[in-house]
């Protein structure tokens, strides 16, 4: 019995101890906006999935954000005549909408001046409400669902083209430039993959192509032979995949293994070094799109890429957008002469900023204005930019 009570004692002491440590941790979290040295402390919140299946992308986002903040601190940026010191508060939202709202509330409690996030549309949409209720500007580097900025929140922005903008350009390019007549579509039934695929279909059909098959997979699948075989039976001349690199890489490999002779095209989720790594030789000739202008065509883009790779390894996907998002936010603060969310929000809404991914301007809703979209192709084991499109036409839809 004594052993038993010892054990129960143990498990009941663990809880209060943990809680009190948590309390201690929170108490330490700063509550004022000023450093002792008189510097203006600006807190940038960031959130992305840092555990779970998309953790590699989440970490990439965190790295991009961190680099922008380190750069800003190194430059000694002045806001309203005072030297600003930037702090990053990065939280894991586990790609889960519920956790995202908890994280959002935590960032609000931590008195962040602005938020870079979240990665997924499913987390960005519910979190946006909390940021909006508290008047904190939010820039998503990667959420593409149209619904995010359609909620009517003044605090919601993104530096990424939305599904409608990107799907529109992709569908047009497939039907017109690549001359595809019979198109097969596979999507992964996530908010991102399905959203992009639907917009692609609309645009491709509007440009005269026929959708001969629409098949589905999931964002956890490894084997696509069944759907690819079904696609093969429909003899398409182009296969479009709406989803991420972790699937499109192996899928590309299986396309070749099944001798499915078709062009392969995917969205920004496939434009990664992982895609080429996972598809191997089969990657050759695949098309992908990425909002913005190729890094090495932008002033400062090449330098950014070199420094990022030296520090964190290859860019996965959205790190440059996170870098831009932070810098746009800081630029707005400088312009407004204040890091107070209420004061710099109007400046952010009508900013013009030359980022490493594109020239950034927001429209009424907070979407990227006239976002350029670049098409890439794998040539000799590398993504090579083909053409930058869509700068003028994206207003439709």
């Amino acid at each position: 019995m004594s052993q038993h009570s010892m054990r129960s004692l143990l498990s009941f002491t663990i809880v209060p101890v943990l809680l009190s440590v948590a309390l201690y941790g929170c108490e330490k979290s700063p509550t004022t906006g000023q450093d002792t040295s008189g510097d203006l402390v600006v807190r940038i919140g960031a959130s992305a999935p840092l555990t779970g299946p998309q953790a590699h992308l989440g970490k990439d986002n965190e790295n991009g954000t961190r680099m922008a903040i380190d750069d800003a601190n190194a430059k000694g940026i002045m806001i309203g005549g005072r030297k600003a010191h930037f702090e990053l508060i990065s939280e894991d939202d586990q790609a889960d909408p519920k956790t995202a709202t908890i994280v959002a509330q935590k960032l609000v409690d931590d008195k962040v001046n602005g938020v870079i996030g979240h990665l997924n549309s499913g987390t960005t949409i519910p979190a946006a409400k909390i940021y909006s209720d508290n008047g904190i500007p939010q820039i998503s580097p990667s959420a593409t669902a149209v619904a995010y900025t359609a909620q009517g929140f003044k605090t919601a922005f993104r530096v990424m083209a939305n599904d409608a903008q990107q799907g529109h350009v992709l569908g047009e390019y497939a039907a017109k430039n690549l001359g595809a007549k019979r198109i097969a579509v596979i999507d992964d039934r996530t908010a991102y993959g399905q959203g992009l695929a639907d917009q692609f279909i609309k645009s491709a059909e509007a440009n005269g192509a026929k959708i001969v098959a629409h098949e589905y997979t999931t964002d956890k699948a490894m084997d696509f032979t069944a759907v690819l075989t079904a696609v093969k039976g429909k003899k398409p001349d182009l296969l479009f995949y709406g989803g991420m690199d972790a699937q499109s890489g192996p899928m590309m490999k299986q396309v070749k293994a099944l001798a499915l002779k078709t062009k392969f095209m995917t969205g920004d989720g496939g434009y990664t070094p992982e895609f080429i790594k996972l598809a191997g030789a089969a990657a050759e000739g695949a098309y992908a799109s990425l909002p913005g202008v190729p890094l090495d065509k932008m002033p400062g883009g090449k330098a950014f890429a070199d420094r990022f790779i030296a520090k964190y390894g290859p860019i996965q996907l959205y790190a440059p957008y996170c870098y831009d998002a932070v810098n746009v936010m800081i630029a707005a603060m400088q312009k407004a002469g204040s890091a107070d969310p209420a004061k710099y929000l109007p400046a952010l809404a009508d900013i013009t900023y030359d980022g490493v991914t594109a020239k950034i301007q927001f429209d009424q809703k907070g979407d990227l204005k006239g976002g350029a979209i670049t098409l890439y192709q794998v040539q000799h084991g590398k993504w090579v930019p083909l053409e930058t499109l869509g700068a003028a036409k994206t207003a439709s839809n």
Partner: protein
Amino acid sequence: MSLKIPKCFPKMKPNSKSKLLLIAFGIALLLLPFITDALLGRGWVRIVDFAMLYIMLALGLNIVVGYAGLLDLGYIAFFAVGAYCYALTNSPHLAQAFPVVFHLGVHLPFWIVLPMAALIAGGFGVLLGAPTLRLRGDYLAIVTLGFGEIIRIFLNNLDAPINLTNGPQGISFIDPISVMGVSLNKTQHFLGIAFPSVHLYFYLFLAFTALVIFVSQRLERSRIGRAWMAIREDEVAASAMGINTRNLKLLAFAMGAMFGGASGALFAGFQGFVSPESFSLTESIMVLCMVVLGGMGNIAGVVLGGVLLALLPEVLRNIVVPLQQSLFGRTLIDPNSLRMLLFGSALIVMMLYRPAGLLPSRVRRRELGGDEPAAEESVYDATH
């Protein structure tokens, strides 16, 4: 085993001391959001709100797993059904998808939607129960798991050919819950005190949690509850004693599902956005962990399990970095993988120290504490 289980529950003797304690506890609960807000910040009030939703879920699952002994790995499906009931009847989605039928949009009041969500979820509970009546143990587990996935997949794909659920995009613009004309989405003032939205939801969820606890307690001590426990202990003997095992099993599934559906509706109103990714298998497993870890069949245990597992990841979020910094002077290990690592380890350690749950039910405690070997309960029970 005899069916005189009520003997195991000695009547509570409400003496003045325990009454006082109860009142103090009640006041503490009522003040909780304000204390939490002042000490830890509003984020923690939201975390506590979610913890209450999990407690309701865990108590619902407790009816199925704890009382009736039916292993359910797809419980989150009922939560999903409830959430989508609320979302569809309180958002512009249906009006946009079917402009001809619902040209004005559907906005049903909370007090109608909530019982409706519970009833529909209960119906799904029966739907799940019916084909699984003959199944036992792990066969039941996989079918319930499959059921949970089936519901999620349907929610994820019913945007075509008719757009019922809006598919993976989820449903946004869900109306917040409003009780008697008071919207819980805005800060409200009563008696000169400002109640922020998360606080208001806290009181709503607290009331529902109390209700769920009350109903659970009544069920546990009722004829039905005793019959469930008889089925849990020995189905053949129970049916020999004249218990209609089929109806009672279905009732357990339905009751559990109703609790799940009601909390789902609360979740949708609170979150303002639902999408299928909130209802994954991992969520079902998490709720099951709460029930088992807390102590199956014991309400206090299940509540404790719910609180612990809902708070633990968030507590760890706040201690991992400061702890490392105080130990090593800097962050050595990536805090997020460490956080989940500690969470997994905590599950193992707690279970090893308290195999019957943190607060085991009295029946179980008696079984384990007695001289009689617990072989009957063993996993390694040689049925294969």
